[in-house]
């Protein structure tokens, strides 16, 4: 682990002198080494290392409570690291928070908006706090107005907005100063599919057209799969896997066979493991997830193994692996199942 640094976020100067932009890790928009955050005795973030090149969409995937938001809050200077070190846009989050804040845009998980403010007032306030001139602000307002498609609603109190409108306004507020790096903490949680697709389109566009680095936390597998150039999977505060979605899925195998059975699937596991072409088998309740290099070739052997076993097969599915399969292989549980356990509602 790297040198410990003190929780200096609060005691550092409000606007730290620029100081040198650290060049020890050039090209990284976000660089973290052994990042740690304790809450009392609980280690919420445990030795997280990040190397995110400029211009990348990085998906930070994990179930509720895995440490995603805590990591983001540290990288955004809202939370002081207990240990380790993080550089964002080349500046240290603990000792140069003012410089970091000038270069990042953040849309946190819960869009904290003042219901009595209008959309225009919020964007103007954000722009002014980032030191934009009236001319620059007017230009950005016009650009962002098109981006978020709120039209006349921008002049209405935010309290009258739908959830999707609030999300889009929050995204615009994060972008008003044209940041180098944008942190989006679960930007589509609670959105309907249409609004979610729209946010995805905008995220891609920001990255492709404006070259912004995007750090995206999500608990939605398809979101990480669709958007991210690379994905980091976090569980219990630690990154358990990292790579492109394709590489991560490939690590599970070319194909996945899912067998749902009556009774305990673990009883059928030994027989299936012995079937030809099977790379690994995970049993969870009444479900067997079988990784294989060639599903079409292996499925008949799996079916035969199951037929001769102690459980009755309800259905057998062949599909390509998902990030959930990666998560399952690494952590022994489905990410959605874990979310449901964390959030019984």
């Amino acid at each position, binding site marked *: 682990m790297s040198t410990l640094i003190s929780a200096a976020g609060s005691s550092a100067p*409000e606007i730290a002198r620029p100081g040198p932009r650290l060049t020890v890790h050039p090209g990284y928009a976000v660089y973290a080494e052994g990042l740690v955050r304790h809450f009392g005795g609980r280690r919420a973030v445990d030795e997280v290392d990040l190397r995110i090149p400029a211009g990348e969409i990085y998906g930070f995937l994990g179930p509720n409570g895995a440490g995603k938001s805590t990591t983001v809050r540290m990288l955004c*200077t809202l*939370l002081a690291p207990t240990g380790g070190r993080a550089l964002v846009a080349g500046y240290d989050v603990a000792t140069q928070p*003012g410089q970091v*804040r000038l270069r990042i845009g953040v849309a946190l998980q819960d869009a904290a908006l003042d219901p009595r403010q209008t959309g225009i007032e919020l964007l103007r*306030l954000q722009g002014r706090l980032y*030191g934009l001139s009236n001319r620059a602000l007017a230009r950005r307002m016009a650009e962002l107005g098109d981006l978020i498609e709120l039209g006349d609603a921008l002049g209405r109190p935010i309290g009258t907005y739908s959830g999707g409108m609030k999300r889009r306004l929050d995204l615009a507020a994060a972008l008003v100063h*044209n940041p180098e790096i944008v942190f989006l903490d679960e930007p589509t949680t609670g959105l309907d599919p249409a609004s979610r697709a729209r946010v995805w389109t905008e995220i891609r566009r*920001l990255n492709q057209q404006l070259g912004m680095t995007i750090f995206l936390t999500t608990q939605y597998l398809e979101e990480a799969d669709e958007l991210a150039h690379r994905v980091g999977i976090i569980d219990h505060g630690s990154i358990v896997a990292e790579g492109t979605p394709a590489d991560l899925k490939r690590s599970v195998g070319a194909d996945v066979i899912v067998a749902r059975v009556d009774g305990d699937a673990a009883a059928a596991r030994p027989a299936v493991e012995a079937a030809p072409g099977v790379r690994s088998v995970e049993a969870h309740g009444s479900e067997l997830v079988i990784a294989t290099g060639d599903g079409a070739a292996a499925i008949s052997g799996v079916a035969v193994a199951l037929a001769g076993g102690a459980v009755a097969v309800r259905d057998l599915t062949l599909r390509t692996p998902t990030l959930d399969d990666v998560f399952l292989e690494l952590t022994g549980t489905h990410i959605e199942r874990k979310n449901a356990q964390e959030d019984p509602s």
Partner: protein
Amino acid sequence: MTAATDTIAIPASGEVIRARPAGFGHDLTSIAGRALRAVPRDPAAVVPPVFIALFFFTVNIATLSKLTGRHPGFSYTAFEMATAILLGVTGVSRAPALVLDVQTGYLDRLLLTPVRRTAILIGHMAADVAVAAALTAPILILGAILGVRFGAGPLGVAAFVLLASLWSLAFAGFGYAIALKTGNPAAVNSTFLLFFPFLFLTSSYVPRGQLSGWLSTVAGFNPVTYLLGGLRSLVLGNGWQWSQLAQALAAIALVGMISMIMCFAALRGRVKRSSQA
């Protein structure tokens, strides 16, 4: 999504807009502007204090002016106006709104920007001073209708408003301290507990010389006694009573110093807690 909105407008000039530190004054006016714009949308924050002030002004005059009628040249209406003004402006602040910002996470939104942390607090306070000054208007107008004339002239009116506004700011510091310390709206409302001793254990309704023994002693230690003295000197006196005005300013400074120390300590604690939460 329509084709028309499928592209982000990229500046034709190629000029890239980047953030820069805005400067303290800019931060302060931005925060104060937001706080001021919120006032008309939150009439519950300003209407009751004005109503209470006007109500007590009217009722106290009706109740007590006959008792004082035997003192020639003494206008109880003019005497009571200072009390009415303090009833109107004491405790008026955006501290409850700041609590809401803490609770909703809006404060975090502000803390994510390069805004100077002290500007968040001072910006709210600057708005409070403006609001307090505005709240004196209806009371001054009622006083004028009832025949109150300022011995210190038109500038005396301005000084009267200034003293009242500064007092409002000094008292508001306690509200902000509690708001930032607790993040609890009910706790902020508890500043009302300070309101009573400050405004009633003093010469609010009769001159200090008419107070009974223990109350006169207590009033001697109450800064509001000297504030009322300064305010009344502008109305009842002939010209400017500098010593009384100096005492009023000193009283405000004393209360303000205590409340500001408390609220800036609370701000430091809140920012630190936010980074360590």
